[in-house]
């Protein structure tokens, strides 16, 4: 068996390693930001599917944006009354599937997906899933070959764009000939892809939407993914430009279908895109949760938002406890009740510091006067504390009403004070007053309020509280520090002061 000092060293070391390790993992692997104040852009894509249902079972399949390390899906949800929804993966393609046993008339399904671009470099390096093959009838192929003759055979971005420009030039006989049967945007893009493939480019048609803020009723747009050198670029065959990866959201790649409706007809899909600014950490949390990372899936982030806020408050309490430990065991300040200052500090979080201090002094001061009268009534202990409690509540009401009448809303915040704790505090201080005199009461009161104020300053600091909320595993580090202080056997500051007469005489 190890000695207890050794055990403490090991335990503290372990807590530090696990705490910092988990935090580092979340930062480096899951992309959690260092600061909670960092913001980033999240794109919200809203799809609106409209179709006429036949009188039978209906199945709707929509190709969803892929979730990968380049683009992280933050959340996805839908509104489709009467439909059963599931997300499936078929041949490596993520699909949303809505099914209903029976649907009649015009049906509307809304889907919503939020995503952000984590790493566009990575997207550019991914290989094409299904490059195009040349599929032209012989006559057209001959026309295409003669069309391509004048082109530079070097494969680069400039030459590829030159081809697109030529293809879009109006009044060119050769182009008109080629486009005879390719009038729709989709067909034109496909032809551009075919021609580029003939030149030797590796090309894949993709469909998606442009990411424009507040763009309503967008329809699906055709793009080409073209490999140039070792990089993949996204080209717009109509505007002859290269589109940056984070300007478009791709839904459908290669030959995947975008929207399939079985048991219905006349289906259309339109999209709306919105730009949303949000804290960087919430995207990281949502993305990790979406990917069902166990570290996130079983953390407080998996709780409903309102419960998370409760925990946000609970998570800062250890900081208050640390302040108490430091002030009591390293400094040697006397407080009334070990963790009462932490509770007071929690109250200050609701009332703000100055208002809180004022209300505390008023309630305890008036309570002490009331208690000193009660002590002359010769009551039993528990009824006496209970009457102090009742008095404290009456005092709360009085402060609340009076301050409101005088036009000061701050007084209402008195209700945040834990009244039972406060009643006990009044009782103890009153006894201490009788036993040891007013000086000791003042010392303890001042010690408690100092501790509470310092704890408040730490707990109310948004940098600190956000960091703890982002990296709750740092509480293990905090635990390590507290355990380490627990085994500290050196002098407290108060010892140094207390034994000072020894040095002087």
């Amino acid at each position: 068996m190890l000695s207890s000092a050794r055990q403490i060293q090991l335990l503290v070391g372990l807590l530090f390693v696990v705490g910092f390790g988990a935090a580092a993992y979340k930062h480096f692997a899951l992309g959690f930001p260092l600061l909670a104040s960092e913001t980033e852009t999240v794109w919200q894509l809203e799809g609106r599917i409209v179709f006429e249902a036949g009188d039978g079972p209906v199945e709707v399949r929509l190709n969803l944006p892929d979730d990968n390390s380049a683009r992280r899906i933050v959340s996805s949800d839908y509104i489709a009354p009467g439909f059963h929804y599931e997300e499936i993966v078929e041949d490596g393609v993520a699909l949303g599937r809505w099914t209903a046993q029976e649907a009649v008339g015009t049906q509307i399904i809304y889907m919503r997906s939020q995503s952000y671009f984590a790493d566009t470099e990575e997207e550019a390096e991914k290989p094409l899933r299904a490059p195009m093959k040349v599929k032209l009838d012989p006559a057209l192929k001959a026309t295409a070959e003669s069309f391509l003759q004048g082109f530079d055979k070097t494969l680069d971005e400039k030459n590829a764009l030159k081809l697109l420009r030529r293809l879009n030039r109006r009044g060119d006989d050769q182009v008109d000939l080629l486009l005879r049967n390719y009038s729709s945007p989709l067909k034109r893009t496909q032809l551009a892809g075919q021609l580029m493939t003939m030149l030797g480019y590796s090309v894949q048609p993709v469909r998606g939407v442009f990411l424009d803020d507040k763009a309503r009723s967008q329809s699906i747009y055709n793009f080409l993914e073209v490999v140039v050198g070792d990089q993949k670029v996204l080209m717009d065959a109509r505007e002859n430009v290269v589109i940056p990866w984070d300007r478009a959201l791709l839904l459908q790649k290669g030959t995947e279908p975008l929207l399939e409706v079985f048991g219905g007809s006349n289906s259309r899909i339109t999209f709306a895109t919105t730009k949303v600014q949000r804290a960087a950490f919430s995207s990281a949390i949502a993305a990790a949760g979406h990917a069902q990372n166990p570290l996130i899936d079983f953390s407080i982030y998996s709780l409903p938002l309102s419960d998370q806020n409760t925990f946000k408050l609970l998570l800062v309490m250890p900081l208050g406890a640390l302040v108490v430990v430091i002030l009591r065991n390293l400094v040697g300040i006397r407080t009334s009740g070990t963790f009462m200052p932490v509770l007071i500090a929690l109250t200050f979080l609701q009332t703000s510091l100055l208002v809180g201090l004022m209300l505390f002094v008023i309630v305890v001061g008036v309570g002490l006067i009331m208690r000193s009268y009660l002590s002359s009534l010769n009551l039993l202990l528990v009824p006496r504390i209970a009457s102090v409690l009742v008095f404290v509540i009456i005092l709360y009401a009085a402060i609340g009403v009076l301050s409101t009448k005088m036009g000061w809303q701050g007084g209402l915040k008195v209700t945040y004070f834990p009244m039972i704790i406060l009643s006990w505090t009044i009782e103890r201080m009153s006894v201490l007053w009788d036993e040891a005199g007013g000086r000791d009461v003042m010392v303890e009161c001042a010690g408690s309020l100092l501790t509470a104020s310092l704890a408040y300053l730490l707990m109310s600091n948004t940098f600190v509280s956000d960091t703890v909320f982002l990296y709750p595993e740092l509480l293990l580090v905090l635990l390590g520090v507290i355990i380490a202080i627990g085994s500290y056997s050196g002098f407290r500051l108060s010892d140094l002061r207390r034994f000072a007469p020894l040095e002087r005489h």
Partner: protein
Amino acid sequence: MSSFFSMLGMASPKFLRAKGIVGMNLRNVNYIARNNPRHLYPNVDDKYKTKLLCAKHDIAVPELLGVCRVQGHISELKEFLSQYRCFVIKPAQGSGGKGILVISGRDGEYYLKPNGKRVTHDELCRHVSNILSGLFSLGGKPDVALIEDQIKFTDDFEGFSYEGVPDIRVIVYKGFPVMAMTRLSTSNSDGKANLHQGAVGVGIDITTGEALRAVQFDRPIELHPDTGKPLSTLKIPYWQDVMLLAARGYEVSQMGYLGVDIVLDEQRGPLLLELNARPGLAIQIANGEGLVPRLNFVDKCPQNLSPQERVDRILEYWN
């Protein structure tokens, strides 16, 4: 560095370490936590249990006149107390001298405190009621009130104590009495021998029982603040008996780090007043010495010696 600390009115840690001073954390971690098993605390925290244990070990204690256990007993107090002129009422589980009421006389219907203040019977009953409700016990646990005979202390303390019983505090480490002081009540301390409340602490030479130096509120003083008597002339009588009684406190409590409080009765000699599992550190200021060298000496001594042998070891070493 040391001037930095003295500027702040503090001693430098280096000096205190050289002196062998035990600080709060060191006491709690190294001495109390290691030597005082938790389950034995009730034996010393509950003075009633301590009294029973002392009786078992045949150790002299102030006589217990009665115990008030339930609120119903309070109505019988008047009749019960009428037979005694002087007595002390204390909570069995009080700490730090809280809740101790000393009655040293009567004035008609009234009881008199040592400072001459009158106490009505109703006030006394309320005090007992508070004790039973647990006002003075740790965590507000319901308690019982002990009624003890008041000590008639010896003339040797004449002029050294003001209106109260002076007691002798001995730190007993693993059964060895290592450091001692006497606590003299003052007008500040309301007749109580509690240093927090302003009693004077006088360091006692462990070998002879003679006064070394004195402090009040942790500051050195020469004369008793109320009587003006030079404190350096104090000498505790029956010193060997006091040491032996303190050493036997270890057998009673089984606590390795113990404060034994002893009073000297005129007729009965040294009596064990109470035991303390968390003795304070002010004794080091009163002695002008740190505890560490003495505790280290005890750590090197063999265990399982008899109380007399342990006292002899200590006397031998410091002579």
